[in-house]
C-alpha cells in the first residue's frame, strides 16, 4: 500500500503500535533521566535558544496468521532531537546515540543547520514554563506485558478459529512510551503512556470478518470477545451476492466512520485554511453538515490518548470545531495564530515545520440509536464493517474513494438480508455528514486509515457506491 505522503504524524509521543515487554519489570527511563539528557544538551549548546525532545519507546507486537504466530517482534529505542535557534533561524537535528560525543555532535549540528538558513519572520521566542492539566494514560500492567502473555491470548484465538474451521490473522501489541520536551527558557514537560492493541480478521473460503480495539489499559482489551465478533462476521458474510452499485442508505459501524472522517483532521488546521487547501476555506461559520453533527478536539476526553501539550510545549486546549453542523473554530500553533490573528490552541507540530498544526483528538457528538435500530429502520441499504484504502479524490468537495472490506451486508425491509460483494465508493464527506439520519453513542474507534478517534456508528442516506469488486 502506498501511503499518502501528506498524512501527518502527531507532533510527538503518539505511540505507534507496539512496545517491548521482556519481563514484568519496569522499562521506563523515568522523568529524571530524560531531564538529565536535556540538561546536558543545554550545557553544550551555543545557540540563542535550545529545545530538546527526548523520547523513549519500548514496544512489542505478536503477529499471527493461518492460526499460528508467524512474526513476533520487540524494539527498544531512544531518540534525542535538538532544535537550535540563532538570529531568527531554526533547525533540528536528531540522534539515538546517548554518549557524550554524540550529544555534543547533535547539538552542534542543529546550530550549524540553523545558521545557514534564511531568517524566518514567523519564528517566535520559545515558551517558558507552562501549567499543564494532568492526564493518566499509563498502565503498569500494559507496560509489563510479556511475549508469553501475548502468545497465550493469541493461542486461544487461534484455537477458537481452528474449532470453527476458520482462519485467523491479526496482531496483539503492547507499548510504553515516554516523552520529555524541554527548552532553554525553563520549560520542561513530561508525558508517558502505554498502549495495547488487538486486531483480528477471521477468514472463511469466501468471507471474512474483522474487529479491533486499542486502549492504554490492557485490561480493557478482550481478545477473545473481539475474535468472536470477527468470527460471527465471517460466518454471516458467507456466499456474498453481487448487488448493483448506486446510492444506498449506508449504516457505518464506528471504524468505518472513523476511517472516513479521519481525513478531515488536517482541514481543521489554521495553516491548512491559510494555505487555501482546506475544505473549510471560505466556509467557516456556514452551515456545512447536518445540525446533528458537532465535533470537538479534546485530548482530555476519557477515551482519548496523547500528551496534553503540543510540539512547542503549549498546553492543548479543548476546541469546539463544529457546532450543530457549522464549522466554528480551527486549531492553531503559536506562529499560525499570529499570522491569522487568532489565539494558539496548543496543537502545533514540532518546529521547524511547514505544516503548522492539527487536531489529533477528535471527538464527535453521538446519538443513542443502536445499530439494530438503524437496521430496523432501513428499507434498503448496506451495513459496513470496515473500509479500506481510502484516498482523497477531490480536496475541496472532500470526495474520498475506497473499498468496503471484511463484512458488507445487504439490509432489506428492516433486517440484514445476507452478505454482498465489496463495493468501491466515491463519497463526499461533507455530503455524508449532511445526510446522517441516526447515530449511536460515540465510542473509541480504531481503524487502519486514521488514528483512533471517538466517533459513533452512523446511518447515512444516499451514500455513493460506484463499482463492485469480485469478492
Amino acid at each position, binding site marked *: 500500500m502506498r501511503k499518502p505522503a501528506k498524512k501527518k504524524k502527531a507532533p510527538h509521543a503518539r505511540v505507534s503500535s507496539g512496545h517491548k515487554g521482556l519481563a514484568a519489570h519496569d522499562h521506563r527511563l523515568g522523568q529524571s533521566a530524560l531531564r538529565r539528557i536535556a540538561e546536558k544538551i543545554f550545557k553544550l549548546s551555543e545557540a540563542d535558544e535550545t529545545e530538546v525532545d527526548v523520547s523513549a519507546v519500548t514496544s512489542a507486537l505478536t503477529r499471527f496468521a493461518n492460526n*499460528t504466530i508467524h512474526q513476533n517482534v520487540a524494539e527498544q529505542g531512544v531518540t534525542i532531537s535538538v532544535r537550535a535557534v540563532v538570529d531568527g533561524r531554526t533547525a533540528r537535528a536528531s540522534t539515538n546515540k546517548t554518549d557524550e560525543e554524540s550529544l555534543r555532535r547533535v547539538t552542534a549540528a542543529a546550530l550549524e543547520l540553523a545558521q545557514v538558513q534564511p531568517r524566518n519572520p514567523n519564528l517566535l521566542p520559545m515558551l517558558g514554563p507552562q501549567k499543564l492539566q494532568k492526564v493518566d494514560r499509563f498502565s503498569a500492567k500494559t507496560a509489563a506485558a510479556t*511475549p508469553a502473555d501475548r502468545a497465550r491470548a493469541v493461542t486461544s484465538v487461534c484455537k477458537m478459529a481452528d474449532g470453527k474451521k476458520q482462519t485467523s490473522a491479526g496482531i496483539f501489541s503492547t507499548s510504553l512510551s515516554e516523552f520529555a520536551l524541554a527548552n532553554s527558557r525553563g520549560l520542561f514537560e513530561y508525558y508517558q503512556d502505554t498502549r495495547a492493541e488487538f486486531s483480528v480478521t477471521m477468514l472463511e473460503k469466501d468471507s471474512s470478518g474483522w474487529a479491533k480495539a486499542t486502549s492504554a489499559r490492557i485490561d480493557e482489551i478482550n481478545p477473545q470477545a473481539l475474535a468472536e465478533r470477527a468470527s460471527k462476521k465471517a460466518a454471516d458474510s458467507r456466499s456474498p451476492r453481487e448487488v448493483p452499485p448506486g446510492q444506498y442508505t449506508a449504516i457505518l459501524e464506528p471504524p468505518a466512520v472513523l476511517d472516513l472522517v479521519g481525513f478531515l483532521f488536517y482541514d481543521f488546521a489554521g495553516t491548512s485554511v491559510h494555505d487555501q487547501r482546506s475544505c473549510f476555506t471560505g466556509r467557516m461559520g456556514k452551515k456545512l453538515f447536518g445540525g446533528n453533527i458537532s465535533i470537538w478536539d479534546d485530548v482530555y476526553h476519557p477515551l482519548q490518548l496523547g500528551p496534553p501539550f503540543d510540539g512547542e510545549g503549549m498546553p492543548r486546549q479543548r476546541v469546539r470545531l463544529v457546532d450543530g453542523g457549522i464549522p466554528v473554530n480551527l486549531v492553531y500553533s503559536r506562529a499560525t495564530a499570529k499570522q491569522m490573528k487568532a489565539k494558539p490552541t496548543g496543537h502545533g507540530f514540532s518546529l521547524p515545520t511547514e505544516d503548522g498544526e492539527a487536531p489529533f483528538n477528535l471527538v464527535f457528538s453521538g446519538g443513542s440509536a443502536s445499530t439494530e435500530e438503524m437496521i430496523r429502520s432501513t428499507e434498503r441499504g448496506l451495513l459496513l464493517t470496515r473500509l479500506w484504502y481510502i484516498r482523497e479524490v477531490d480536496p475541496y468537495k472532500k470526495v474520498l474513494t475506497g473499498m468496503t472490506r471484511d463484512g458488507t451486508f445487504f439490509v432489506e425491509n428492516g433486517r440484514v438480508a445476507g452478505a454482498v460483494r465489496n463495493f468501491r465508493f466515491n463519497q463526499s464527506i461533507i455530503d455524508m455528514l449532511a445526510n446522517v439520519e441516526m447515530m449511536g453513542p460515540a465510542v473509541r474507534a480504531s481503524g487502519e486509515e486514521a488514528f483512533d478517534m471517538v466517533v459513533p456508528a452512523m446511518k447515512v442516506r444516499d451514500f455513493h457506491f460506484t463499482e463492485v469488486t469480485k469478492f
Partner: protein
Amino acid sequence: MKSWANLAIEKALARRASYADVRVMDIRHRDISTKNGQVGRMSEGESLGIGIRVIAEGAWGFASTDRLTTEGIESCVAEAIAIAKASAMAKRHDVVLAPEQSFVDTWQNPFVKDPFRIPIETQIAVLLAADAEMRKVKGITLAEGSMSFRCIEQLFVSSIGSAIHQMKMQSGAGIVATSFAGEEIQKRSYPNSFGGQHMLRGYELIEELDLVRHAPRIAEESVALHKAEKCPEGKRTIILDSSQLGLQIHESIGHPIELDRVLGMEANFAGMSFLTLEKLNSLRYGSDIVNVVADARLAHGPGLGTFGYDDEGVLAQCTPIISSGQFTGYLTNRETAAAIGQPRSNGTMRAESWNRLPIIRMTNISILAGDRKFEDLIADTDDGIYMETNRSWSIDDRRYHFQFSTEIGWEIKNGKRGRMIKTPSYSGITTEFWNSCDAICSRDFWTLWGTPNCGKGQPMQTMGTGHGAAPARFRNVKVGIASSD
C-alpha cells in the same frame, strides 16, 4: 559493527537458536522543505541500532535495540529467544527455510556527488528558486518543494557464515504548484507527485531534475486546470504516462505477487491476493506485449529496490513476473519459497530500519520497454485520453479492483493531443486492464521511478520501491467515474 554483530550471533547460538541473523544499521538523513518562499522543514538525523532475528524451538523471534553495549546486545538476544519461545506456543510446524549459500561481500551503489557534502544553503536555494518561479504565475496559491537524502550503512551477519556490508545513498526531490479558485483545488507536481523522484543516486539526480526550469510549466498548468474540460464518463482508450504506469504496476502487480500476502500472512492489514498458487504459470495476467520483472540488480538501474543482497543475505536477482502476458513469478523469501516447494528465495526481504523485521517487499518491479515512440502512439490513437501524474490511488484488499486519478489529462482526437482535461480518472479489474494493453513505448521513454512511501507490515514499515515504466496504451477502460456527480 562487526563485533556487535558477531557477539549477537555467538550469544544467540549459545542460547540454542537453530538459526540467527543480525543487521546493524546506521542511517543518516537530511530533509528540507519549502513553502511559499520560506523554509519549512529543516532537519538532519542519525539512527544506529541492531536487529536480531532467531529461530528457537522451531519458531521466529525478533528483538532490536539501540543499546550497543555487551549488556545491551546480550539482553536483546535474550529477548529475541524469549519471543521465539513464546511464538512456539502457537506453532503448527517448525519454520523451514529454503537453502541459501553464505556470502562475504561488500556492496555500494555508485553515486557522483555526496548530497550530505553539498552545502545546505545550496539545496535550500534551489528549492526557493523553484518556489519563486511557481509563485510568479498568477493564480498559484501554494508553492511547495522538498528534498530528502538517506545514507544507509548496513552489516548483515548470519549463523550460516554470511557477512555482508552494504551502503546505499538515496536522493529525492520534487515540487508542487497548487491553485485554489472558486470551488476547486488543482495542483501539478514535478517530476512526480507525492515527493517527486527518488533513486539510489547522489546529488547529481537533483541537478538533473532541474526543478527550477520545470517550475513555471507546472504552475501554469495548475492554474489552467480550472478552465479545463471535465473528464468524460464511459469506456475510452487511455494512454498513461510512465510515472502513473509505475504506480499502476506497484498496486496491481507489485503487491499481489508478494507471496506472504498470497499465503495469508498479511490478511489482517494489507490484505491478501487474487494470485492464488494455482495461477502461477497458468494465469494470463496481461496481453502478449506485457513483460514485467522484479529486478534488484544494479544492472536494472539505481532504483529504490536496488541492492546487492536482501536482508536475509540472498543475492539480488532478476525474476520474471509476467512473461509475454503469462504470470510466471512471485516475490519470495527463504520461508515462503520453501513453503511452496521452490528451491531458493528470489531475494526480496527488506526492513525499513534496524528496529524492524525484514518482510517481503517489492524490489524494482518494472515493465519492459516496448517498441513505440511516444509521438507515434499519440498519432496512432483516434479517440482517447492521455493521463499524467498520479493524484489519487486505491485498490481492494485482494488487488482486483482499482481506481486511479491523475493531476492532468489531454483529450486525443484523430492522432492529436487536444483539450486539457481536469482530474481524469480510470478504474477497472487488474487482469482485464493489463490484457487491454496494446502498445508500450520504447526504452527512450522508459523511466525507473522511485516510490519512497510504500507501507506494509505490522508494525508498519515504509519502504522505497522502484518501478520502471514507459508510456503505454490501454483499450476500453472505464473513465470518469470518480469525478461524476
